């Protein structure tokens, strides 16, 4: 090697070593906690990351932003609107690059907890906690879903829950009623098929739809305290026999009640939804947020649309009053220089008038603000769903957000394996146990 080349090589190696030596970094210095209850200064740009991209939802925040800017001409609201799928990557990229906006969307469970743990979510207890005027406008369960260690961080925007939607005309034609147990649900599939319908339409291409069935069945079979301990790798045992029973029942449902059976992983969630809306399938397990898709223009009309919670299996040892669901909401960036302004904007967004607007067509997102959801404004099914969620003895948060990502990912792969028949309930549970042990 020539001397000059040697010097250059040494310089490059030296620089690399120095760079690597400096990589064991400390957490970014946290800014002093801003006063969330301070009087806001109505100037500057307020950035908001929403999950409302696409029609018809995107116009909701656009309208609110325009109205807020009209009220406060010194404020510019910058909206970053993403979809349910894209917001996951976007949020993580913005977090990693320390560029989170002033207000950002969150799910409950481990998803929100990560931001709280990382000091990226402002403690809003002073303004939204119990006993505060703003906090009093929300349902308590919705507020508590974003509480960690007794502190309130989230602004719940809308409620959500998972229900079996059914086509009343199909049920009438098959001569069956709403099933009272999981076993009755399975038994209803043969007459429905005979009547010319796919009993339950189901698309699991993205993996998470299977987790929705599983989480509801887990809540029925496994006591809530055991479930909650099992969500955290530090305390998880995942040895309750209810898990295997629930996994087995889910597989039976897929095999006996769907037309796609072990090929369900090749079907989009939205394709399954279309089949239900086109009147070709009798049942479809769906979120309250999806109820608005049933309109007079579709084969399945609102008059023929009914809902019921996934029926409880006989002899299940968990909580029969549990419903899978959770509110979704927003966090305020603890490092934002405009925390008070962000609080003011969200107070405006969750005001009674905007809450009613959100709950009614075309948005039909059932607001967490007490009294915002009415049968007249939001439709019978949404109103009924929200009432059932409010009455639930236990809200089982989505399995893919309630636990740590490694364990959620193991559930996701396991659910797909169960559907395709390449794994057994016991093996799926073992793989999740291993992922949980590795995540400790």
């Amino acid at each position, binding site marked *: 090697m020539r001397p000059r080349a040697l010097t250059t090589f040494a310089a490059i190696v030296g620089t690399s070593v120095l760079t690597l030596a400096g*990589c064991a970094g400390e957490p970014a210095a946290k800014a002093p906690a801003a006063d969330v209850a301070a009087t806001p200064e109505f100037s500057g740009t307020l950035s908001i990351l929403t999950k409302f991209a696409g029609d018809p939802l995107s116009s909701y925040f656009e309208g609110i932003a325009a109205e807020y800017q009209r009220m406060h001409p010194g404020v510019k609201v910058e909206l970053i609107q993403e979809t349910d799928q894209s917001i996951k990557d976007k949020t*993580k990229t913005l*977090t990693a690059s320390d560029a989170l906006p002033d207000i950002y969307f969150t799910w409950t469970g481990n998803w929100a907890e990560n931001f709280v743990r990382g000091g990226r979510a402002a403690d809003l207890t002073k303004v939204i906690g119990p006993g505060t005027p703003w906090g009093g406008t929300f349902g308590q369960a919705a507020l508590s879903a974003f509480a960690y260690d007794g502190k309130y961080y989230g602004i719940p925007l809308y409620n959500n829950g998972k229900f079996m939607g059914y086509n009343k005309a199909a049920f009438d034609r098959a001569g069956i009623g709403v099933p009272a147990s999981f076993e009755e649900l399975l038994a209803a599939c043969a007459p429905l098929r005979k009547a010319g319908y796919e009993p339950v339409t189901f698309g699991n291409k993205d993996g998470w739809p299977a987790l929705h069935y599983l989480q509801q069945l887990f809540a029925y079979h496994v006591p809530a305290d055991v479930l909650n301990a099992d969500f955290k790798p530090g305390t998880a045992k995942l040895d309750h026999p209810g898990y295997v029973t629930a996994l087995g029942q889910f597989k039976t449902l897929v095999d006996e009640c769907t037309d*796609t059976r*072990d090929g369900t992983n*090749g079907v989009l969630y939205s394709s399954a939804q279309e089949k239900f809306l086109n009147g070709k399938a009798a049942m479809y397990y769906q979120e309250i947020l999806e109820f608005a898709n049933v309109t007079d223009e579709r084969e399945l009309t609102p008059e023929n649309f009914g809902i019921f919670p996934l029926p409880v299996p006989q002899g299940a040892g968990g909580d029969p009053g549990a419903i899978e669901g959770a509110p979704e909401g927003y966090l305020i960036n603890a490092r934002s220089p405009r925390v008070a302004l962000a609080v003011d904007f969200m107070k405006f967004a969750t005001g009674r008038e905007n809450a009613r607007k959100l709950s009614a067509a075309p948005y039909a997102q059932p607001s967490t603000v007490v009294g915002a959801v009415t049968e007249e404004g939001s439709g019978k099914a949404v109103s009924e769903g929200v009432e059932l969620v409010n009455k639930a003895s236990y809200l089982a948060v989505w399995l893919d957000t309630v636990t740590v*990502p490694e364990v959620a990912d193991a559930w*996701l792969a396991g659910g797909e394996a169960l559907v*395709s028949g390449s794994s057994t309930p016991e093996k799926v549970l073992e793989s999740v146990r291993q992922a949980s042990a590795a995540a400790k």
Partner: protein
Amino acid sequence: MRAIVRRTLGLAWVLPALVLVGVFVYLPLVQNFQFSTLEWDIYSGSQEYVGLDNYRRLLDDPVFWSSFGNNLLYAVVSIAFQVFGALVLAALIESVRSERWRRSLRAVYFIPSAISLTVAGLLFYFLYEPSLGPLNHLLRAVGLGELAQAWLGQESTAMSAIIAMSQWQGFGYSTLLFAVAIQRIPGEVYGAAAIDGVGPVGRFVHVTFPLVREMTGLMAIVTVSGSFQVFNEVMVMTAGGPNNSTQVLGTWLYRSGFVRNDFGYAAAIATVLFVITLGIALAQLWVTRSRRVEW
């Protein structure tokens, strides 16, 4: 003195490009390696130096190895179809006497390559759809209903279905490049072979194949390299499922970082991927130098 000024000026001219390449190509490479030695919590921002632990974890990760296997399978099938298959097809097209037909056939085979991989992936997703997709309908219509299945929903067929789409999409491009290479072969060589009584197959084996070896080598390497960079089609069609059966290194990297929050581990996968593609790129340079055909 003038030489020094000229050299300095020359350096000054290339400096902006060097800076850009350094900042946007080499710095991220160094940073990626740096990230791969960390356990990084993006939420708190804490970064813990873990040395080569993330690389050791790769050795015990079954999904990493199955992803690597899928990339290899992709490469093998692509070599068969997009290199040797495309070469045979190009030779057949170039043997057609009518210039108009030759042009038409080249265009017909090239059209799929003009479609973006994402669009092609979506197109094939609907083609493979188990209940509404035309593929299953076609199979049932011709009495092969027992073969109808959820092509992308079964672990046994999903990867093959993705690879098949990819071959359809890339086949025409390789064919066109081989057609160009075949056109460069002087007609006298074929004429001489014909006079010596060599048949069409013999002409392909003894004339065409040796004289396009530079292009064959290049295409083989480009194809293998492309097989290790697969991402779009898998993300669109299966996102790595079901049960991680269609993960390739690119998608497993993405899933490790953006779904499992394991960014250090994702960076380690990226480094391995870089080393593989760098090796292939160096081989490509060597092949293009050593296999050049002169006439």
